[in-house]
């Protein structure tokens, strides 16, 4: 490539714009982090922007001492693991058979799945079904109804299609059955897309709250962390200890809210950068063909 002077100026402009971009992305998080670690007085004086003033980890201590909050945090973690395992199993079980083009009824089965991506019954019909099935207000309502995402299934199927059929055929000639081929050839070759889908399912569950809000209104002990966080932010639930010990300072309840936000955010920030190299690959399979 020929590098001219105007090109260099262009490079500088582009780097500057990207730095600005990074700044815009992290400012809201830094601001909340800084406020969660600052003293009440500094907050009241509006001194805290991106760096904590009057270092103070009391808010984190208080949130961690709150039984309701920590229970919800652990429950959501457990729920996330269960949901990811169930969803991944269903997705693999569904995507793999559909790549056999001599499977009878494949087209029909395929369209049964794809149709649901365009038309869905909606919130109230779902609510009535869960009621009829006795799932309402049970923790299983957070696991079963969205266990399989057709979109993710199609993503995995497209990836499976990319694995050369000759591999499968030669294994079949050697006498391997479908399950063996799946376990020995297809799954080991698809680690990147499997990691991506697991991340999607896990993040979806960790971040999800509307199902709990709608279908589990009366079972507060199984509220996922996001719904609890919403209630804390809206002042409808308070961190227990704070109310017990009679803290009424607006500054403290403020830092408590910020610390709660951080607790819900940090697991994601910790997990996702490690999976980045997988998911970029994973996301683009289904999307672009040619």
């Amino acid at each position, binding site marked *: 490539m020929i590098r001219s002077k105007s090109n260099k100026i262009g490079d500088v402009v582009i780097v500057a714009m990207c730095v600005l971009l990074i700044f815009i992305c992290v400012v809201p998080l830094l601001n909340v982090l800084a406020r969660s670690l600052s003293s009440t007085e500094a907050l009241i004086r509006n001194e805290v922007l991106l760096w904590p003033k009057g270092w103070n980890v009391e808010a984190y201590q208080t949130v961690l001492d709150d039984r309701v909050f920590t229970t919800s945090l652990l429950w959501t973690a457990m729920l996330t693991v269960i949901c990811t395992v169930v969803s991944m199993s269903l997705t693999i079980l*569904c995507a793999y058979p559909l790549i056999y083009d001599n499977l009878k009824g494949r087209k029909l089965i395929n369209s049964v799945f794809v149709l649901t991506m365009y038309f869905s019954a909606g919130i*109230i019909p779902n609510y009535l079904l869960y009621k009829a099935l006795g799932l309402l207000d049970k923790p299983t309502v957070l696991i079963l109804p969205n266990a399989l995402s057709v979109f993710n*299934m199609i993503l995995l199927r497209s990836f499976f299609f990319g694995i050369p059929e000759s591999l499968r055929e030669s294994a079949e000639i050697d006498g391997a059955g479908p399950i063996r081929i799946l376990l020995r050839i297809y799954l080991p070759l698809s680690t990147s897309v499997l990691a991506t889908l697991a991340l999607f399912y896990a993040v979806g569950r960790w971040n999800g709250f509307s199902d709990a809000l709608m279908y589990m209104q009366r079972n507060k002990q199984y509220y996922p962390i996001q719904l609890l966080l919403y209630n804390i932010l809206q002042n409808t639930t308070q961190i227990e200890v704070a109310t017990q010990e009679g803290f009424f300072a607006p500054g403290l309840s403020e830092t408590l809210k910020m610390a709660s936000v951080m607790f819900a955010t940090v697991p994601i920030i910790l997990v996702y950068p490690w999976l980045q190299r997988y998911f970029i690959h994973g996301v683009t399979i289904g999307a672009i063909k040619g």
Partner: protein
Amino acid sequence: MREAKQLRLNRTSNYMKRYWTLYLMLLLPIAFIIIFRYIPMAYILNAFKVNNILRPPWELPWAGNNGFEWFIKAFRSRDFLFALRNTFMLNILDLVIGFPAPILLALLLNELSFKRFKRITQTVVYLPHFLSWIIISGLALRLFAPNDGFVNIILARMGRNTIPFLNDPAHWVGSYVTLGIWKEAGWNTIIYLAAITAISPELYEAAAVDGASRLRRIWHITLPGLRPTIIILLILSLGRILGSDFDRPFALGNKMVRSVYNVISIFVYEYGIKGMQFSLSSAVGLFQSAVGVVFLFSANALAKRYGERGVW
């Protein structure tokens, strides 16, 4: 004749011997899709029946006006008409302002020639996608708080008036759209960046030989190369023009901006789940789904007519 039958039977039994495990695998997913995606469709019948919270719709008598009473009621309800207007308004703003954002961002990232810096930038701009709307509402409440929020502190230090970002309908709409871009624009660049890598490098080399400037290369090579991707994604967004996300307006909304955050999904939640008006909210949900399908198919047909590939 008998031999042929025998042969066919043999072939079928061979086939089943070989592939029965595949059907076994499909058993659970198919059971799932039927129970949780198709059976609920039976309950759509509610939209045409009298409202009753205890009995299933097939045991109930038809609603008045040949069963369309609830649809008529919905269109006479001020709340629903507001919800319809808000859904359209927010989605159109998302489309007009939000749709080009990832394209511009992808063009910018693509011009970044330092590999490591590019990766770091990508990691950071993808991050907001992974945050829930509740977390983002927590961040936004802080960032945009009327008196002591980050942005308003800075505005005050610059001697400007503070802005009620989340507490005044017009400003709230702006914040809603901006936060949507903040969350998804980075993530949505992935598809565009992948499409850019598919553009032949020879085109760029030829352009460099001809002395084309950076902007000309973007305009004459990169953007035309992105055209099919842009069209497909545009079709998909057009199909969702009446769709409504629940998490986003629910998390960001508050009492002061009810006139704009009340979208169809919020309406269904408030009237249906909280207010137990199953028939009315089923009717509204059905209307929304049906219009969504119509929009998606029309957008696709339109794209095909203009010589693009379309989604199907």
